[in-house]
């Protein structure tokens, strides 16, 4: 039994890492499902969330920043959707890629000009520091709190998408945008809301990671690759696919870290290759149409 503890620790640890990917991947997946845009700037919103947290925490505390920072980023997302993304829903996907890639670079450079390229010091709030002990199992208290917040955010999003009128229109829009249009419902405001929710979630992940990883302009690039891997493995357009993929990716990382640490990151890509070979649309992938 004692031999199992380290393996279990690594698996739980992987799941926690997966929770960060999940918050970013859910937004990526929603924006792609409804708008057909692969948002390469998604990592930038995550970075902006982290920087806002650093700036705001001095004034309104970490808890305040946890709420306010994603809201501000959601408003930025609204502006970006309203004036930029909206023009590209019907365009060649490559144009959307170029646009969001450019946006990511502009955002990163702006952060660099405003805050400098060096990492900014930022620590875990006093109340959340320390470890949790369960027998031989020891873990960071802060990360367990993160896991809880992620679970709440995912649950909230799921309720929004399945139990509300808003969610019904969004899901219908993903399935058949033409039919939604024929019923006289414009998907445009829904798309704005989806982008706001998506980038808000990314910003929330940014705030949560700021105390434990370096806050620096390129942090968005670091994480977005894994978020994409999660989306691809889960299958575009599938809510539970992304959730399951984040968990599977996390556990794969954990198991690899236990048995062969050098392959911790590589194992995730290997998993993606295996999934794509057997299920090219991802684990829960659906056929996607985009709305006008």
């Amino acid at each position, binding site marked *: 039994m004692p031999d199992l503890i*380290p393996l279990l*620790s*690594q698996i739980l*640890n*992987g799941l*926690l*890492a997966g929770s*960060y990917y999940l918050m970013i991947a859910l937004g990526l997946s929603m924006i792609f499902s409804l708008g057909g845009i692969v948002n390469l700037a998604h990592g930038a919103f995550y970075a902006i969330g982290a920087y806002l947290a650093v700036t705001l925490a001095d004034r309104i505390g970490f808890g305040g920043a946890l709420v306010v920072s994603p809201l501000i980023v959601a408003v930025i997302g609204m502006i970006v959707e309203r004036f930029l993304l909206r023009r590209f829903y019907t365009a060649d996907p490559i144009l959307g890629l170029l646009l969001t890639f450019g946006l990511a670079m502009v955002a*990163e450079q702006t952060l*660099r000009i405003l805050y*400098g*390229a*060096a*990492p*900014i*010091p*930022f*620590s*875990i709030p006093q109340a959340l*520091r*320390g*470890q949790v002990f369960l027998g031989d199992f*020891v873990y*960071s208290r*802060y*990360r367990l709190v993160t896991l809880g917040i992620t679970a709440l955010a995912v649950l909230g999003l799921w309720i929004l998408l399945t139990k509300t009128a808003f969610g019904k229109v969004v899901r219908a829009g993903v399935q058949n945008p033409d039919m939604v249009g024929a019923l006289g419902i414009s998907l445009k405001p829904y798309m704005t809301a989806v982008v706001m929710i998506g980038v808000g979630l990314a910003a929330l992940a940014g705030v949560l*990671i700021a*105390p*434990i*990883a*370096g*806050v*620096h*302009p*390129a*942090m968005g*690039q*670091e*994480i977005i*690759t894994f978020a994409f891997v999660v989306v691809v493995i889960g299958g575009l357009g599938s809510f539970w696919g992304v959730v399951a993929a984040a968990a599977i990716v996390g556990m794969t*990382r*954990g198991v690899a*870290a*236990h048995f062969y*640490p*050098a392959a*911790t*990151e590589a194992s995730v890509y290997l998993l993606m290759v295996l999934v794509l070979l057997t299920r090219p649309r991802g684990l829960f992938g659906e056929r996607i149409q985009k709305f006008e």
Partner: protein
Amino acid sequence: MPLDTSLSRRTLIKATAGATALGTLGAPAISYAQAEAIKIGHITPRTGFLGPLGEYAAQAAQLAAEEINASGGIMGRKLELILDDSPNPQQASAKAERLVQRDKIVALLGEISSASALAIAQVVQREKVLFINTGANSDALRGSDCQKFMFHIEAQNSMYVKAVGRSLIRDGLVTGKKWYSLTADYAFGHDLLNVAKRYMAANGGNHAGDDLIPTDLADFSPFLLKIRQARPDVVCLNLAGTQITNFLKQYVEFGLTFPVAGFGFDTALAWGAGKGNFGGTWPVVWHHLIDTPGSKAFVTGFQKKWNRMPENQAWGDYCSMKVVAQAITETKSTDPMKIVEHFEKGAKFDLLKTREGYFRAKDHQMMMEMYAITALPAAQIKNQYDIFSSSPPVPAANESLEVIAATDDENKCTFRSA
């Protein structure tokens, strides 16, 4: 009507742009007509995990160039600095080639990534242009991959390991003790691990294990769990760039208390981790608390121009610029071969430390003092920068500067005929 206005406005914009372009093209020809400027190229990574350090490098190079020009240039000629970035080795090599062939630079300074420095070294050797490496640490660049036209103001990995190793031995963390390492998975990290293993083994340390860390990894938790399981006497880091910041923050988060030491380091990363997170003992080529008039002037000048504290990478690029300017003045020549010979004859340079430095002829490594810094307890920290205390210069004043450098047995350089 709207169509007409937009057309005429567009035409106006085009005309303005054209005029501006012509204006800027015309201007330099007039101002530099009398005495041709001495062009010096500077490339360094500005993005990615080394980007934060690259920004210091570029800012310091600009400060040095400005100071040189303010004091009358080099032999009465203006120094013109051309900055570029090097996100990866392929780009580094292509950009070095462009700076040499198109811009006709006299010397090239910069770089932090050992892999990119290696790519640049091949270009400068082919083009016969002087290159001063300001931030790449790999011993191999001074050994198996050494080049006649490449010099190193940045200390080599051996110097880093030996500088901090003395502190570790003093603290009883080497002989008969178990050390665990994390290593950045690229040229620099691999080289540093080899040098560290050699040093620790020679002094009776037992290597408990090593994990290779991808350079874009932000989450160290799997490795922290492994370290907790391994229970080493000391954790040694062969990491680079923002990896170090992330590690330090998460090490505290996971409540690990084994002593930490690093074999490679940059103070900006300690500042990024911040008070309460920064811990351990680390080697540096220079830091802002060094008490010499030169260092104080540099710190003041940098703070005035860039409104922040310079760190060790800034020091390397600042001093290299001054070293090249001084060498051109002393040899009265911009011929790279003449400057190479001047360096090899042991010309002395002020490096803002207590002793002057010189390039070692056999491998072109700058011989100089180094320092080991140790994190201060949180209670003693007064501001965001002064978060560590420093050892006296290593080697001590009565020792040869060579004692911390790689010996011929450890790392031998044979220059191919130039």
